């Protein structure tokens, strides 16, 4: 069974064709289409109505790359919540038109469920219930995932998402974009215990997160060091001497603080539920320190850690088509009255 999956929840115009919930026949993301001149549009760098310019071309490209036509497609799935309403509406309108024109079933999907499902598209060994940590620029969510793709939300961020703090700190330090990869690379050359940044809410006894305070602490530390003359931004290599603060150490210490809280709470959740499987998803799942620390900590309680390849971590249409396959077999069908919604919690067990 082949499903066309569409995601326009934020920045990306993403469309994929997936067979039987696993076999990714195509997975097209507008920002990665090099020759965007082909459709005469602007790459939607930011969530906006620019999705309109891209959507038809990206649908066609997904079909072409999968070597299928609409005659081979069995259903159309689309992210209809949560996200930026103006962006979601473009995907939903496109999906409804396509489903109607080709007389295909339509399924409205929660974006977060797509992220959670991504691991099962590439790993056979996932057991239930498992603990899933979704970490990206927009999300930080800890979920207990039960058989049949039913969920219990354990906690999430109370302010900034983990990936957002990476991007903001990188920009603040003058390191550029994408902040996650740049800080991760710099951190590998630094000392993670050089600066004791706070671990907000680590011992709060629940599964909530807060990363805004780490951002403030980094800024305070940097300003103090600049005043003391031990740090120069942007680094020009002139600040030297024994007191000199290395950007690598700031990056490593910052990363250690973020990763510590994420790993601690995720493993604690696995321990509490007895889950032997932990999955990591979202753009920050690419972080080397997060992967390594989580693996080590999980091993101590006999749990395994899984993460998908990056093309399934970041926003994509394949994960939407993937979870839609499971939902289709559980009877989900949406009518042409399907609407988009800015908010939308995943349904609890």
């Amino acid at each position, binding site marked *: 069974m082949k499903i066309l999956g569409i995601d326009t929840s*934020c920045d990306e115009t993403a469309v994929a064709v997936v067979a039987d919930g696993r076999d990714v026949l195509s997975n097209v993301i507008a920002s990665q289409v090099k020759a965007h001149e082909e459709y005469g549009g602007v790459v939607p760098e*930011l969530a906006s109505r620019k999705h309109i310019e891209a959507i038809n071309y990206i649908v066609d490209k997904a079909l072409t790359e999968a070597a299928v036509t609409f005659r081979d497609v069995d259903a159309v799935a689309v992210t209809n919540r949560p996200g930026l309403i103006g962006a979601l509406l473009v995907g939903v309108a496109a999906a409804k038109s396509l489903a109607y024109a080709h007389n295909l079933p339509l399924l409205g999907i929660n974006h977060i469920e797509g992220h959670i499902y991504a691991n099962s598209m590439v790993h056979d060994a996932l057991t239930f219930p498992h603990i899933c940590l979704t970490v990206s620029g927009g999300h930080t969510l800890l979920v207990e995932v039960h058989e049949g793709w039913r969920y219990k939300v354990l906690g999430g961020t*109370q*302010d*900034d998402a983990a990936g*957002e703090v990476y991007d903001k700190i990188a920009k603040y330090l003058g390191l550029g974009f994408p902040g996650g990869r740049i800080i991760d690379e710099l951190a590998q050359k630094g000392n993670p215990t050089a600066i004791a940044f706070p671990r907000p809410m680590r011992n709060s006894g629940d599964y909530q997160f807060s990363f805004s305070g780490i*951002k403030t602490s980094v800024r305070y530390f940097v300003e103090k060091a600049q005043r003391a003359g031990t740090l120069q931004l942007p680094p020009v290599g002139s600040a030297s001497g024994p007191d000199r603060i290395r950007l690598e150490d700031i990056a490593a210490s910052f990363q250690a603080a973020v990763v510590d809280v994420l790993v601690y709470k995720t493993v604690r959740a696995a321990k509490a539920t007895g889950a032997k499987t932990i999955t990591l998803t979202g753009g920050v799942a690419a972080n080397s320190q997060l992967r390594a620390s989580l693996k080590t900590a999980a091993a101590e309680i006999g749990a395994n850690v899984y993460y998908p390849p990056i093309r399934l971590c970041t926003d994509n249409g394949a994960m939407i088509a993937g979870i839609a396959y499971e939902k289709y077999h559980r009877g989900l069908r949406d009518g042409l009255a399907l609407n988009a919604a*800015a908010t939308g919690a995943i349904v609890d067990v």
Partner: protein
Amino acid sequence: MKQTFKTHSPEETRALGEQLGKTLKPGDVIALIGDLGTGKTCLTQGIARGVGIAPGEVVSSPSYILINEYKGTIPIYHIDLYRLENAAEIADLGLTEYIEADGICIVEWAERMAAALPMRCVRIDIRWEDENVRHFTVQHPVSG
């Protein structure tokens, strides 16, 4: 009318926001202007509490998604222009529809759309003194 406030912790900042939130009515727009880590989202959490946000709704940073919507006594639209670089990108977002709507709009990094802000908006400048101390300058519209 111009007022100044000083807070010494995130909790004090939230309490200040709560007081302000209690005075708001549908259609009000709050423009927040302050550097990284000055407490814009923190103040917004307080404002939302004062407005009467629905239980269970979490006020988190909309930097990535650009707009968060919260249910409550009055709907709250929490807008964040951090990632937007120019007027065209902001125009693409269709913010006028939110600002003209019957909810309360709170706009972080509002200086990026200064020209497009309505006359009736309340402007709050936040200045950082040290790790915990913040100064707030609240400017109410002349007619308000």
